[in-house]
């Protein structure tokens, strides 16, 4: 099993969700996050005071999936979150040791 974590542009969230459900991903977790990458921040000007905003708002999407879905999931996220401009985000893939469904106690791939 794999845990796929994608940092995407906030306005791309709906498209990513649709793409993932389209290929059969059963559930995702979404968090509003802030960070910086190559896009860097921007400056804000309030009267005489100028502030560099280092951290930009992004959305973090996490999906736990079976190994055989990995390529499909990566492709779906890549396509749906792409604008071609700097700041589109990244996808991180982790090995997932164990999954347990709390209600039934199912473990492993059954619990996904």
């Amino acid at each position, binding site marked *: 099993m794999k845990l796929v974590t994608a940092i995407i542009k906030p306005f791309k969230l709906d498209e990513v969700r649709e793409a993932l459900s389209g290929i059969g991903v059963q559930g995702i977790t979404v968090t509003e996050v802030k960070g910086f990458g190559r896009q860097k921040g921007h400056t*804000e*000007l*309030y*009267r*005489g*005071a100028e*502030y560099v*905003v280092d951290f930009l708002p992004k959305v973090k999407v996490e999906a736990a999936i079976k190994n055989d879905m990995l390529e499909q999931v990566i492709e779906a996220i890549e396509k749906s979150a792409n604008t071609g401009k700097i700041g589109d985000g990244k996808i991180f893939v982790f090995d997932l040791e164990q999954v347990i469904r709390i209600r039934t106690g199912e473990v492993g791939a059954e619990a996904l």
Partner: protein
Amino acid sequence: MKRVFALLALVSALGLIAPTVAQDKPAAPPTTATETTKADAKAGTVTEAVKAEEKKAEATAAPAPQPNKGDVAWMLTSTALVLMMSIPALALFYGGMVRSKNMLSVLMQVFVTFSLISVIWCIYGYSLAFTEGNAFFGGFDRLFLKGAIPDALKGEYAMAATFSKGVVIPEIVFVAFQATFAAITCCLIVGAFAERMKFSAVLIFMVIWFTFSYAPIAHMVWFWMGPDAYTDPKVVDEVNAKAGLIWQWGALDFAGGTVVHINAGVAGLVGAYVLGKRVGWGREAMSPHNLPLTMTGAALLWVGWFGFNAGSALEAGNSAALAFINTFLATACAVLSWSFLEWLFKGKPSMLGAASGAVAGLVAITPAAGNVGIPGAFVIGFAAGGLCLWGVNGLKRMLGADDSLDVFGVHAVGGILGALLTGVFNSPDLGGPGLVVDWVTAKTGYPGIGEQLWIQFKGVITTFVWSGVVAFIAYKIADMVVGLRVAEEEEREGLDTTYHGEAAYHG
């Protein structure tokens, strides 16, 4: 806390005593100054005239002037509008500009200062500002508004003069209208020391500063005997001598360029110096937490300012109409000039800039409102947007003080600009209405641009220095008593939870 209350009481008492000493000098017996004296000086006050008539003691006594219902209605409306300018307008305008952890502290400082000054106004403030005393302070004829309603049972109300002979409004209306001015002036100062001053110190400072700066400046600029006192060319000098110092010089201040804006702006700047910069200033971002509220506040200020400026005509007539259109026009001009200049020099026109431009325009047109014509409104408005933009940028850097919400850069700078240009655009040659040069005949004229500008300048400098000195002493007293500044940990955590035990936002 007991110490604080005891101190507030003490300070109020001091405020009562000091002017008494000053008041001893003039030989003239105090009379009910703001009441319109009737055409025959013997009648004294309106109320006395009423009584005299009832007794038929003097067959020659003319009937006392009655207030016009339209005037009274407009003044009551204006008073409520000016109240709205403090709460919620100014509170929201300021509140939106601070960090969310200090939102309630700003709202609270404005709300309670407004109430505190309103109460003090009715105890001794009004009397100190608007009754006969000397050239600097008024007297104590109206302590607790005593005598403003001589006989409620018989429906006898004292009358206050306006700017037209034989036109009066009930004095209690004038008291309430002016109360809102006194209160908002003190509230304006809050912006300069926002996010770092102890609540108790704010209140102590306000009482002292109001007593020794607002009240005397209001007296100096605005107190006079009213047009009906000028019955004969022979009494002119005598009647003039009873007016406030700056009024005697002939300075024009329609709705408070000196009394309100320069007064508050200077007190704010002194506060910013005395308190020092906020923790993290220049290193951490101190971005406004809610600019939509700031915009809402600025817009409400604009609406309320019609009461402030057009209400200052004290009558619902041509003068109010002129003040109204000028308040409309100059403000819009200032929004445009601030926004476009910001766009030009900083790259982007900001909402905060537009809102600030509106306030700058409103401030600058305040002394000019009924004193200039349409050309004056255009120039003062456009100039205010540009100059105040500099006030919060270049000038602010030069001054090096952390005037949190730019009370000096907007209110003092805009107030000075407005006060000076009032003297210029009052000229009939520049479309202005001129000023009354002879109150016996109510003849208007204009002394000349250079001369009037000099008079205006003297008024500005007097207010600037007076307020600065009083403010410095007032901050020092508050510092000695309770300490001005919150602890660094409290400042980092925010004043909402540490000083008011609540948070503005949850979740």
